[in-house]
Structures are given as structure tokens and as C-alpha cells.
């Protein structure tokens, strides 16, 4: 059995959706043109993950395994719609930026993946920690990727100009190809860091 802390760390770093599992790439590559978009999308996904993980963990003993996938999809889609409506009502500006990407959280496989792999087998509290960890890990990846693309592609970070007027932005980085290039370098960096961290123990 794993502890709450392990559930969190596992979701946040060891089994990070983007860096390690490499699932949920569609919203990742789509919204990460700026760091602030990354934060918004990441936190919305975290909220959905927390809600859906807890709800699925609660009903895990009632739902027969044959119909669990449709049941999970209903639960996840409901949470996404609720978040979509709430954001539209109370954070209208952010909702305008994230726009079509919010409904897409439904098809982000990291959420169904986490429901299937974790929440349907673990207690409510552990599932909550797993949801928070996975969500924040996803947010970290999005913010990292968003920052890199924003700095190189527009010369700004969180909307502030940091590289001065003489900097000529590489527009490629806010276009789709830049997302792949930047993600590739970030993945390489994460692998390198993990290897370096592990190797002395060997």
C-alpha cells in the first residue's frame, strides 16, 4: 500500500503525465503558447482531476467493472462541464483565453487514465492526493513549456517584456512546430536530471 505522500509524488513527478507517461499531449501542445495559459489550463485540469478522482473512488465499489468506463466518462464529463460553466461565470476573462480547450479536458486521457489506474482501486483520500499530484504535475509541465515558448516566441514572460525591444522573437515557437521542439528539449532535460539524480545510488 502506498501513502498519501507517495501518491502525490508519484502523480507529480515519478509518473508525471507529460514527462514520463506522455499522455494528454493535445491540450499540452495546444494551449502552451504562454505561461499564463499553462497555469489556467493546468489548474482547471487539476480541479477536474481532484473532483473526478474523489467521485470515482467513492463509487468504485458500486459500479460493476463491465460498465465502469461509461460511468467514469459521465462523471468526468460532468465535472468538466461544471468547471466550464463556473469559469465562464466567475472567471470570464480566463475562460475566454482557454475557450475551446476546457471542454477538451474531457478527452484528456490523463484523467480517464488516472481514474482507471488509480481512483478505481484506492481510497478516497489517496485518490484525492493522487489527483492533486497529477494535476499539479501537469500544471508544472504546461507552465514550463509555456514559459519556454513565450520567452523564445514573444520575448515576454507572464506578459512582461524581459528581453527588450532589440530581441527578435522566433515566431516558430508560438506556432505548433515550436511546441514539439520545446517539448523535446524539456523531455531531454528531465531525463538527464532524473538519470543524474539516480546514478550515484547504483
Amino acid at each position, binding site marked *: 500500500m502506498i501513502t498519501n505522500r507517495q501518491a502525490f509524488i508519484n502523480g507529480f513527478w515519478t509518473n508525471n503525465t507529460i514527462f514520463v507517461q506522455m499522455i494528454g499531449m493535445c491540450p499540452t501542445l495546444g494551449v502552451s*503558447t504562454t505561461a499564463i495559459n499553462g497555469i489556467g489550463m493546468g489548474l482547471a485540469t487539476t480541479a477536474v482531476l481532484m473532483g473526478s478522482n474523489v467521485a470515482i473512488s467513492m*463509487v468504485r465499489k*458500486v*459500479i*460493476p467493472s*463491465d*460498465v465502469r468506463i*461509461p*460511468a467514469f466518462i*459521465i*462523471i468526468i*464529463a*460532468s465535472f468538466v*462541464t*461544471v468547471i466550464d*460553466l*463556473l469559469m*465562464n*461565470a*466567475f472567471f*470570464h476573462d480566463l475562460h*475566454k483565453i482557454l475557450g475551446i480547450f476546457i471542454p477538451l479536458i474531457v478527452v484528456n486521457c490523463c484523467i480517464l487514465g488516472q481514474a482507471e489506474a488509480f481512483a478505481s482501486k484506492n481510497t478516497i483520500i489517496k485518490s484525492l492526493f493522487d489527483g492533486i499530484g497529477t494535476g499539479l504535475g501537469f500544471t508544472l509541465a504546461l507552465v514550463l513549456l509555456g514559459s519556454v515558448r513565450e520567452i523564445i*516566441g*514573444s520575448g515576454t514572460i507572464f506578459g512582461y517584456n524581459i528581453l527588450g525591444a532589440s530581441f527578435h*522573437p522566433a*515566431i516558430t515557437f*508560438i*506556432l505548433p512546430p515550436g511546441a514539439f521542439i520545446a517539448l523535446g528539449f524539456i523531455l531531454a532535460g528531465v531525463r538527464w536530471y532524473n538519470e543524474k539524480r539516480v546514478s550515484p545510488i547504483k
Partner: protein
Amino acid sequence: MPEFIKMGVILMIVATIATTILAATEEITRAPIADAKRQELLLVLKQVLPKGFNNEPDQDTLKLSDQSLDRKNKPVTFYLAKKDGEPQAAAFVVVAPDGYSGNIEILMAVKIDGTINGVRVVSHTETPGLGDKVSVTDWPKSFEGKTQTNTKWGVKKDGGDFDQFAGATITPRAVVGAVKRGLDFFVANKNQIFSSADTK
């Protein structure tokens, strides 16, 4: 109870609970969403309309349809700005179908004397960093104060007065064309736009 009926019943219960929650959330958020949308509309209207109007332009509207405003003849809403009941200007959305990718929607406000007061690109799918300069830079300001006659309508490349961008001529050309069509329509139908609102 046979297994398949049990499954169906359980799915039905899950769906019922989910629907109830969704209906409740929709009920709670309906008013705030409508309000946020209205505030947003008023905000952009204030940006393009001349200062000093004291009516509610989003309440004082009329719909007209014409091919020069929208290719598919979809009715276009005219938001009227009035000061003490005296019409001052109208704001409306024109669609440029000939951008680089997809439609460009442009909100423009014209004063009653036929001068453009403000132009703002409200939605587009142009290339970020190239064509999207029509919405993220001060470029739309170059329309302010323009009339049908005091300017050469077109981008500089076509012999007009409006700047194009390095690497992006199609987008500004489409926007200039759409604004010109909107202005022509406004001037030609000015009386209709303002008179029908009085009878309302």
C-alpha cells in the same frame, strides 16, 4: 436480477445524478454568465464608440442583413449610441471572409457624419505573430477619423493608405476591405439605421 439489467440501472442512476448536478450548476451560473457577456460587450462597444453617449447601446439595437456585411446574409446587429436621444454613432460587426485562414470579425463604429471612430478585430484565426498583428498591435487605430473620401482605401502595396505587415499582406488587406464595405453600407443606409430605431 439479471446482470445486464443491473448494469443498465446503475448507469441510469449515475447519469441521473450527473444530470441533476449539471442542471443545478447551469441554473446558478446562467445569470452571471449572461451578465459577464453583457459587460464584455459593453466594454468593447465603449472602446470603439465615441465618448459621451448616455444610452445603453446593447439595448438599443436593430438588425439588418446585407451581402456586403456578411456573405451568407446573416443579419448584423447595429448598436446605436445616442446622447439624450440624439443619435451619435452606430457600432456593428463586419465579417472579412477573405483573410488568410477563416473569417475575421471586425467591430467598427461610425459616427453619424460618416467618420470611422474606432475599429477592433474581435475574432480571427490568423497566424500568430504575422496576421494577428491586426488585433494585437495599434494597427486598427489607423482607421480612426477616416471617411469614404479622405483616404485611399487599400494597403500600401495596393496603392492605399494602410500599412501592411512584413510577411502578412492578406490579413490587413481583408480587414481594410471589410471595413470599407461596412462604411459604404453605413453611409448608404444611414437613415434606415437611425430612423427605424426611433420608432422602436
